[in-house]
């Protein structure tokens, strides 16, 4: 057997807020998704010739 980067061979750690509980792994993934979403909105997209300058023409039936 290979060594894992992180030892996962134990019960998950849970964060509890009153009736609400979430595992560390799930919380980490949700935070990562929020970070990726915000980054996608703000990081500039590389320039290319595949985009028309006309914003308004597009909307087919």
């Amino acid at each position, binding site marked *: 057997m290979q060594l894992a980067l992180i030892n996962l061979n134990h019960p998950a750690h849970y964060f509890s807020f009153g009736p609400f509980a979430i595992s560390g792994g799930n919380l980490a993934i949700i935070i990562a998704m929020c970070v*990726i979403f915000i980054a*996608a*909105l703000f990081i500039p*997209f590389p320039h290319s010739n595949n985009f028309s300058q006309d*914003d308004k023409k597009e*909307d087919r039936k």
Partner: protein
Amino acid sequence: MSSQSWTGRARRATLEKFKPEDLLPEEQPAYVASWVYVFGVATIAALVMLIASGLVLTLNGPAWWHTSSVGHYVNSVHLWSVELFFVFMVVHLWGKFWMAAWRGRRLATWITGVVAFMASIMTAFTGYLIQTNFDSQWIASEAKDGFNSMGIGAYFNALNTGQAILLHVSLLPLALGGIVAWHIILVRRKGVVPPIDNDVTIEGSSK
């Protein structure tokens, strides 16, 4: 003569509905130059990796992926492809939600997305059931109680590994592939939805 043949009528109707220049465009409007628009195709890329690694897993079976190094590797590629698939899909969903991308008669695009999401959840769930380890055994016995309490235990028994395998490797991926193809054809036919403050086309079409 040719106008009478069903092949000719089918060809003309197909080309009328699915114009090659709509399906394979060379240019997109300026507002598409943003990373938010990349997550649909990132989801497709993860799905391709999923299907490719899944096909390799079917060739060799559980005894192989639980014990050999290459088996562990392919199993891990499959797992991490699912993780990325769902991350990309959720970011895609958020993007489309906040830009209200169902505007301008694009409701069917949104709905096929919703169905793709639900089919993906069922596919992931049946995947968990067929790992053939203690994890899948625990998930199956807990889920069985959940399904029974919902009254659907007679149709879907989470303890029936044979049924879960067939759903996971055949019916569900085929259904998901079909719905994704439909989703993408709809996007191409309608063109990308204009931004909300730039929406010159909304009058008369469903909001």
